[in-house]
């Protein structure tokens, strides 16, 4: 009946990992510790060197594939300003053009995402919790979520015209469904035995929701939000592609218009900025998932 309270002996995987603690650094140790970082740095360096070499080799039209150094130059002007545009492709390019458009995108995107998540979670909970709500809403939710969202663009255009509203509409229509569906799935798949256990120990309907269903659903919501953030990003870029803005149409607009104006360095620079943002976003939500629900790794798409 007695068991020593020493955690290391039970084979539970709790025991701590051996740590590199002495200062006795060798190249081998540095390698084992930082190898992924080192590999990534070398990898990317080689990638951009090859890019530069390929672009300068004359095998490809610079209107299509610019030198990496030109992309860097566009990035500097677009983000930090103060660029000398003389002798450089300056169509669409101006001081701070990327950062301004990026900010525009970010504003719309974040507001739309707050709405999508803020509305998606309660809708998903209601659908999962009530057969009536589920029966009433599910035809719309499933149809709209299966439909390629771009197909409703003409109708949205008729209703909303070209402007900010249609952007919100497109982002919302792409981003809200993963939240709804994942939340719904979490509620629906809550393990019956956990609910039974709660009932045996005295849970009323309300307690079952608060103490079992909601915590059980949380990781589902997190992966829904994660999915919705990347869907929303598609939505915002798509909306900007289609927008009729003449200036400050957002980062997607800048990608689209700069390509149309044959300013390839700016197109690539805008695209790289977007890629870095998307990467940070996805990695950020991953760590959020690990922190919010460490007991569980859910992958629902």
């Amino acid at each position, binding site marked *: 009946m007695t068991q020593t309270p020493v955690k290391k002996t039970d084979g539970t995987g709790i025991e701590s990992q051996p740590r590199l603690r002495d200062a006795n650094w060798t190249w081998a140790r540095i390698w084992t510790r930082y190898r992924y970082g080192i590999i990534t740095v070398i990898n990317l360096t080689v990638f951009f060197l090859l890019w530069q070499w390929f672009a300068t080799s004359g095998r490809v039209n610079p209107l299509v594939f610019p030198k990496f150094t030109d992309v860097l130059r566009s990035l500097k002007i677009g983000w930090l300003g103060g660029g000398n545009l003389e002798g450089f492709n300056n169509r669409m390019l101006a001081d701070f053009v990327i950062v301004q458009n990026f900010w525009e995108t970010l504003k719309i995107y974040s507001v739309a995402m707050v709405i999508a998540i803020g509305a998606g979670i309660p809708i998903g909970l209601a659908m999962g919790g009530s057969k009536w709500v589920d029966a009433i809403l599910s035809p719309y939710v499933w149809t709209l979520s299966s439909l390629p969202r771009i197909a409703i663009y003409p109708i949205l255009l008729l209703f909303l015209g070209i402007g900010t509203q249609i952007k919100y509409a497109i982002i919302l229509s792409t981003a809200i469904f993963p939240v709804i569906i994942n939340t719904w799935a979490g509620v629906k798949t809550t393990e019956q035995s956990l609910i039974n256990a709660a009932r045996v*120990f005295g849970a009323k309907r309300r307690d079952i929701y608060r103490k079992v269903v909601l915590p059980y659903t949380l990781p589902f919501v997190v992966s829904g939000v994660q999915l919705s953030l990347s869907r929303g990003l598609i939505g915002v870029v798509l909306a900007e592609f289609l927008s009729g803005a003449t200036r400050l149409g957002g980062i997607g607009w800048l990608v689209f218009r700069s390509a149309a104006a044959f300013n390839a360095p700016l197109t690539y620079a805008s695209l790289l900025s977007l890629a870095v943002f998307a990467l940070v976003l996805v990695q950020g939500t991953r760590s959020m998932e690990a922190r919010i629900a460490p007991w569980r790794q859910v992958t629902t798409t």
Partner: protein
Amino acid sequence: MTASDNGSRPLIVAENLTCGYELERERKLLTALVDITLTVHEGEFLVLVGPSGCGKTTFINVIAGLVKPWEGTITFEGKPIQGTGPNRAMVFQDYAIMPWRTVQQNVLLPFELRDHGISKDETQRRARAMISDVGLGGFEDSYPHELSGGMRQRVGIARAMVTQPKVLLADEPFGALDAMTREVLQGQLETLVMNAGQTVVFITHSIDEAIALGDRVAVISHRPGTIREIVEVDIPRPRLAEGEITGHPKHGELREHLWSLVKDEAFGAKDVAVDEGAEA
């Protein structure tokens, strides 16, 4: 400890109990138990043994108050069972502990869900004592995913016993554990139950487990389940604390008898084994 019909107060009385459940997908009702008449006495360890799908779980769910009987009556201390109550707690086959709660928080759950008239500090103290009683001292702040299966079930046992319920219900609690862990936990459960004078209704499909733990063993036939025979296990306790119960002279005879009863049922169950999983 051996409490049978001689003198001990009847705690749970089931009379002509018939019960079943609905198969949602096929939209039909399935009778799980027919005409069960059974008494659980105070302080006894009653084991229900039978083939899978025989309605054992349904019976224990009726006692727990999770399932309503279709016909017949079931009473607890003379009052009909209506819903769950603080006098009954349950240990589940799949542990059913909340993965987002630490061991301590899991064991505190019954106090959160029902007012047992105990102060907050006292519940904390009791939970900690119970956790150490089941051998998990030092793991109060661990999460279930950091524990082995056996340790998780200890949490399940601690959660069930922390409120000192009149009856402990156990639905194949060791069914998912490996043989060694199972034996250790059987021994610990016996000790816990003996110390607390706990009344237990315990489901298993292992004859050895039934003999090791039960004061009486009720053999249930395959679905729809009826009681075939109730066998007294007249082996003194503690049976598991030191060494092998299998060495006891009565063990072989009991085992053979129970096996002959269960064997018929297990083979008889073949033709209905198709929807076995539905019980869960």
